[in-house]
C-alpha cells in the first residue's frame, strides 16, 4: 500500500476512529500510520479540536421563559404545566 493511499484510507476512517466505532484491528492500523505520518496526525488532532471547540461553546439546552410560555399557550396546556418544573411559566 502506498503512503498516499494509506492517508486516504485513514481519512475515510477518521470519524469512526474518533467516535471509538472502529474495530481494534483498524485502530491499530491507524495508530501505526499516525506514528509515521505527521500530516495525518495533524489532521486527526485538528479534527478532534474542531469538534471539541463546538462542544465547549455550545453546551446548554435551555429555552427562554417567554418562549416556553408562548409555546404552552399555543398548545393550550399552560394550565397543566408541571408545578415542580424548573422552568415554569410566569403569570403576566
Amino acid at each position, binding site marked *: 500500500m502506498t503512503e*498516499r493511499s494509506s*492517508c*486516504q484510507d485513514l*481519512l*475515510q476512517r*477518521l*470519524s*469512526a476512529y474518533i*467516535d471509538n*466505532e472502529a474495530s481494534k484491528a483498524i485502530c491499530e492500523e491507524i495508530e501505526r500510520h499516525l506514528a509515521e505520518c*505527521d*500530516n495525518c496526525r*495533524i*489532521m486527526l*488532532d*485538528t*479534527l478532534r*479540536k*474542531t*469538534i471539541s*471547540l*463546538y*462542544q*465547549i*461553546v*455550545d453546551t*446548554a*439546552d*435551555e*429555552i427562554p421563559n417567554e*418562549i*416556553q410560555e*408562548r*409555546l*404552552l399557550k*399555543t*398548545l393550550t*396546556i399552560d394550565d*397543566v*404545566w*408541571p408545578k415542580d*418544573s424548573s*422552568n415554569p411559566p410566569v403569570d403576566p
Partner: protein
Amino acid sequence: MDKENTPSIKALKAGDRDAYAQMVELYSPKIYRLALRMVDDPHEAEDILQETFLNAFRAIEQFEGRSSLGTWLYRIAANQALMHLRKKSPTLVSVDELIPSLDDPDQKRELADWCCLPEDEFMTTEAQAMLKDAIQDLSPTLKTVFILRDLHHLTTRETAQVLDISESALKTRLLRARLQLRDSLSSYFSERVKEIDND
C-alpha cells in the same frame, strides 16, 4: 436519549394533557436548541419549536414506536428546520457525499498544526464569530448531521433514524461535515499561528 420521565405513549394517544405537558417539559429545550443551531435566528427557531409540537400533537395517533419518542420529535423538528432553510436558500439542497481526497492539491501541502495555540485564542469574539459562520456555511443536511451527532450527542443509529437515511450514509455525511468545519477553522487558526510566530 432521555428515557427517564418520558411520558406514556398510551396516555399521549389518549389525549392526556398532563402527558402532553410532560413531553413538552422534557423535549422543548432540546428542540428549541436544535432549531436555533440550525437556523441561527431566535424568531425562526421559535416558529420551528411551535410547529414541531403542533405537528407532534396532531400526529401522535400515528406514532408507531419504531423509534423513541425523542427521536420522533427530533425528526419532526429537523424536517421543519430543513424546510425553513430551503425556503431561505432553495439552491442549498444538494448533499455532497464525496470525502475530500488527500490527492487533492490542497491536501498535499503540509498541514498546519494549530492545536498548540493558547486556549484564549479560541475564545476571542472574532474566533467565536468565525466558528458560527463556519457551521452556518455547511449545507442544511450536513449541518443537521453535525448538530444532531456532535452537539446533541445522538447515537449514529438515532441520527440515521431522525434523517431517515442508512447508518453508512450518515457516517459519510458526518465525516464530510466535520472535515469541512476543520478546513474552515484551519484557514483562520493557521493564520493566527503565523501571526503569533512573527510577533
